[in-house]
């Protein structure tokens, strides 16, 4: 189980961690910065985390996933700092014997991460910036 807040995500390293001769299925989800949102051009994103609590919440989700599915390896990486369009900001990976568990657990982890983990992103457009989700 690898749960970390990092500066950059290396997908190749993430996959190396998830590889296993004991199991047959790896599902890997990567969230990246989009260059537009609601019709506006996005120049960059800046992520901020309450690191201690974010890691605690990420580990809770990992434990919950391991309770619910037969998981061989599990990875949650989230970046903080500034990212440009195309760059990875979150990686979730699940290795399991069969594909059902890897798909379902990976989906569960990214959905829950977005709900509970104290990380915030600010979107920078050409002319202004907004904290995502802050306002109705």
């Amino acid at each position, binding site marked *: 189980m690898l749960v970390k807040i990092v500066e950059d995500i290396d997908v190749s390293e993430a996959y190396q961690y998830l590889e296993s001769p004991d199991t047959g299925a790896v599902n890997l989800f990567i*969230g990246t910065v989009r260059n537009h949102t609601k019709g506006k051009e996005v120049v960059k994103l800046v*992520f*901020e*985390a*309450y690191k*201690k*609590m*974010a890691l*605690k919440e990420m580990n809770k989700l990992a434990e919950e996933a391991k309770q619910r599915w037969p998981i061989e390896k599990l990875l949650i990486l*989230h970046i903080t700092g500034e990212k440009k369009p195309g760059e990875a*900001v*979150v990686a979730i990976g699940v290795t399991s014997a069969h594909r059902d568990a890897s798909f379902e657990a990976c989906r569960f982890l*990214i959905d829950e*991460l*977005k*709900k*509970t*983990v*104290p*990380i*915030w*992103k*600010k979107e920078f457009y050409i002319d202004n910036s907004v*904290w*995502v*989700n*802050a*306002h*109705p």
Partner: protein
Amino acid sequence: MDVILFGISREIVGMKKLTISTAENIQTVGALKQWMKQKYPQIEKLNSLAVAVDSEYADDDQTLVDENEVAIIPPVSGG
């Protein structure tokens, strides 16, 4: 009591940490939320407002003591 701030609440307050005087007599999470909303009206406009005590989400009736690590959690947007 120290209250740490992140994201939009950090920007609204203009500080990374608030040190609230014991004279304010804030004894619960709910009271802290009320105090924040009165002091910084823009906090009221957020989609949601949570408080973490010792890096765990806390209910409004949870008691606060000076030794707690208290944080304001505006709407999260990770991923």
